[in-house]
Each structure stands twice: as C-alpha cells, then as structure tokens.
C-alpha cells in the first residue's frame, strides 16, 4: 500500500489567471450561468486576489488576479493559456508535503491562505514542471 497517501488528496480547483477578476466573475456568473461564487479574497503572501467559481459539485475554478507585477504571471498572460495550476485538499498536509518532495516534487513556497481560513497551502512543481497546490483540508 505504498501509495495510500494519494487517497488523502482531493481535487479542489484549477487556477485561472485574469487581469480583471470582476469582469471574469461577471462572465462566469452571467454569461456561463455559474451562480455559486465565493467572496473575493486577498491572499497577502501571494499578492493576488482570488474568487472561487463552483462549476460542478465541490469543483471550482479559482480566478486569480495579480496585485503585483511578477515575471511569472507576465509569462502566463503572454502564453495565452491562463489555466496554470491545480489545487488539492489533503487530510495530512505535512505528510503529503514530505511524500511529494521525497518523490521529486519541488517545493516552491508554503503559506497560510486567507482564502482557506488561514490554513496551510503550498505550491509545488511536479518533476515534469506542472504547478500544483496542496491545501490543508478543513477538519
């Protein structure tokens, strides 16, 4: 049962970069018809505003508007593909982090997120350089 830890991961969202979160919220709500939107949070550590749009039961698109100019976000916006990470809840944050880094994932940063009641989050690159986020699951 080597991979039992994978059972603790649950898909939560896909992160989507936007230059104007209010316009994106309007599009998802009024044009696409997704009425369940979270409030807009400012995540200080990441210097971004985010809002979650529920597009299926417990499945979200995280709209992300940068509040500071960074080379990383500039590169994504230039690439014309704004979907740039996937987020997962984990029941055991520290264990998952240890398992993933032990399997060649690169830890980018860890922080407490205002979007998740200040619970722990971490961004990691997979060995194939795909960006993922893990989020401590609520009790």
């Amino acid at each position, binding site marked *: 049962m080597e991979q039992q830890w994978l059972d603790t991961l649950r898909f939560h969202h896909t992160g989507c970069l936007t230059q104007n979160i209010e316009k994106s919220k309007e599009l998802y709500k009024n044009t696409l018809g997704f009425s369940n939107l979270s409030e807009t949070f400012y995540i200080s550590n990441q210097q971004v505003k985010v809002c979650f749009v529920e597009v299926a039961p417990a499945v979200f698109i995280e709209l992300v508007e940068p509040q500071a100019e960074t*080379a990383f976000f500039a590169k994504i916006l230039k690439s014309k593909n704004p979907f740039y990470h996937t987020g997962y809840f984990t029941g055991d944050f520290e264990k998952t982090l240890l398992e993933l880094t032990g399997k060649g994932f690169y*830890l*980018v940063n860890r922080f407490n997120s205002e979007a998740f009641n200040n619970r722990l989050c971490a*961004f990691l690159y997979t060995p194939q350089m795909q*960006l993922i986020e893990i989020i401590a699951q609520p009790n």
Partner: protein
Amino acid sequence: MQMENILQQLNEIFIDVLDNKNIVLTSQTSAEDIEEWDSLNHIHLVVAVENHFNISFTSSEMQAWKTVGDLCENIQSKLKA
C-alpha cells in the same frame, strides 16, 4: 571545472530561463538583483541547471544558496564528486 566557466554557463542558463538577455551574473548576484528571479522561476532555474550539468540538488542544498557564488560552489563540488 573552473568557477569562472561555471559562472559563464550559468549566465547563459539564466538569460534563457528568465528571458532577459541583459543579465550579467557575478558571484555576489542574488535573487534581489534580478527582477525575474522569483520563487517560481527559481525552480525553473534549478531544473535547467540540473539538466545542463547532469546533477541534482537536495532541498537543503537549494535552501542554503544565498548568492550565485553559493550555487557555483555547489555545482563545482558535485562535478568533482
């Protein structure tokens, strides 16, 4: 491999990964000196360096780098090993 040679190769990697042809590295250069060198691009740099020199770094090694000089020394020690 001489430190100067490693630094020169690193300079080319940084220019390519950070897409900034004006980068001129010295052993004292740190992330604060290069606007594009943020935490996310840092990982892209690490992977590019690992692939270029055919080496791999541990998490603790990566966390210990404060300057490009530290990175050069780390690379040199791995190439000697």
